[in-house]
């Protein structure tokens, strides 16, 4: 009996993975539709990007300030407190920016996308669209998917920028580290290609993962209140785990030669 349950769950998971793969392919095929409907895509960038600004900026500021306090405490033990700027910038640009912004993006925008598409399905708006000979993948899914991909790297960059600003407030203004060494060391140590570009690549990959999971879960939600609620939860959980797993894989590939 237990074996049968395990088998059923495995078959169901493989089936769902197959659905997800076919769905991803269909979304990519409909990519030109998002460009043709540029106004809709811009609207989605506003909803998933601009409306996420508050949580991203405030979180970035606090993460940067905490990072500066903790970093200063550790660096002082080794007499390297002038390197605070480097520590904060590398932590944010390489890891915390893309990862924390990705987690926040999944909670704020990913869940909203799933709930919206799921409710459109529940209220038969997607069926109505199909019956009007309009493909919901082109009209509803593709703009949201590409809106998410565009928004995510921009939000991650803003998160890192606010984090560095928060660290500057704490390190330079509050603690009194020399501003010249804070910015100068940072400028010398942060490499554009290895640190900033790799951070951007990470945030783009996280954006693709979160957006794809969000539209997939919404589109395949059971058309009931409970179904939409479950789909929204699945989006946040699956997106968060995917971000953390992808981060590890990407970090292994990106920074292996640097002894990181």
């Amino acid at each position, binding site marked *: 009996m237990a074996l049968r349950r395990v088998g059923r769950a495995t078959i169901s998971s493989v089936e769902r993975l197959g659905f997800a793969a076919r769905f991803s392919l269909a979304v990519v095929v409909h990519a030109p539709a998002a460009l043709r409907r540029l106004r809709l895509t811009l609207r989605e960038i506003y909803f998933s990007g601009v409306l996420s600004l508050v949580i991203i900026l405030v979180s970035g500021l606090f993460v940067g300030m905490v990072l500066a306090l903790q970093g200063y405490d550790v660096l002082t033990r080794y007499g390297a407190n002038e390197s605070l700027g480097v520590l904060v910038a590398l932590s944010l640009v390489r890891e915390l920016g893309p990862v924390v912004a990705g987690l926040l993006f999944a909670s704020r925008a990913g869940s909203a996308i799933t709930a919206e598409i799921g409710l459109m399905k529940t*209220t038969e708006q997607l069926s*109505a669209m*199909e019956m*009007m000979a309009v493909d919901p993948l082109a009209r509803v899914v593709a703009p949201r998917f590409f809106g998410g991909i565009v928004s995510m790297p921009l939000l991650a960059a803003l998160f890192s920028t606010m984090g560095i600003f928060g660290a500057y407030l704490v390190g330079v203004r509050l603690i009194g580290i020399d501003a010249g060494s804070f910015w100068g060391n940072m400028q010398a140590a942060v490499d554009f290609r290895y640190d900033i570009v790799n951070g951007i690549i990470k945030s783009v990959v996280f954006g693709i993962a979160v957006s794809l999971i969000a539209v997939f879960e919404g589109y395949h939600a059971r058309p009931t209140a409970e179904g939409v609620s479950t789909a929204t939860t699945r989006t946040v959980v699956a997106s968060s785990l995917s971000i953390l797993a992808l981060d590890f894989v990407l970090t292994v590939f990106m920074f292996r030669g640097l002894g990181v």
Partner: protein
Amino acid sequence: MPAANPAVVAPTCPTEIAVELAGVSFGYDRNRPVLAGIDMSIPRGKLVAIMGGSGCGKTTILRLIGGQLRPQQGRISVAGQDVATLDRDGLFAMRRKIGMLFQFGALFTDLSVFENVAFPMREHTKLPDELIRDLVLMKLNAVGLRGAAQLRPSELSGGMARRVALARAIALDPMLVMYDEPFAGLDPISLGVVGQLIRKLNDALGITSVVVTHDIYESLKIVDYIYFVSEGRIVAQGTPQEVRASSEGFVRQFVDGAPDGPVPFHYPARPLVEEFARAG
């Protein structure tokens, strides 16, 4: 359309048939058939109702006609085209000639009333904005809601939402309009308004209408012909006059609203005595 004898499915000229179902069977899984051998013929320009209890497969018939589902057996043709043989492009081309009103309107909640009605025009035509504006206002005027053009769907009552959805369904002047439970949850005034609109639009625009409903009284007032579906089969059919005069068990139970009859009150269970004896 079938005439006096319910067993006869009539029109002699095939070009006059807008929708035809021949021996259609369908089930969402193999063990639970929803429809079994449905034969139906809907002539052009007529208003036909499909009636039956909840869950009897009425809405499934609409989804089969619209190509959202494919029959496991049988043939469905719309304007002479076999729906099951159409590819996606063919299906979308066919759907441009069909309007559908969903049970609760299915209006797009992120668009205004005006934009909801303009939606099919913007998607399928390259008409200039001025012309789209005039057409949308004409459609809204036809359902009495020109003044509500700038409202959001959340600001509409159930009856108003249904009328906006009706305006959207006829936006591209379809040859066939399908209505899924258009009377559900409406107050008597809205119900009468929607019923009359369905009839008037059918006649004025020369379209064919299929109404899926369980509202027998409103249907008898407006439709030309009625099919009764129960347990996936057509159990009776006829004109409103024939239905009123019918002594057929299912029709009588439906018309009279009797709780018990061919459709039993009790869900199948063991005999009551046996049930209590086991408990004792």
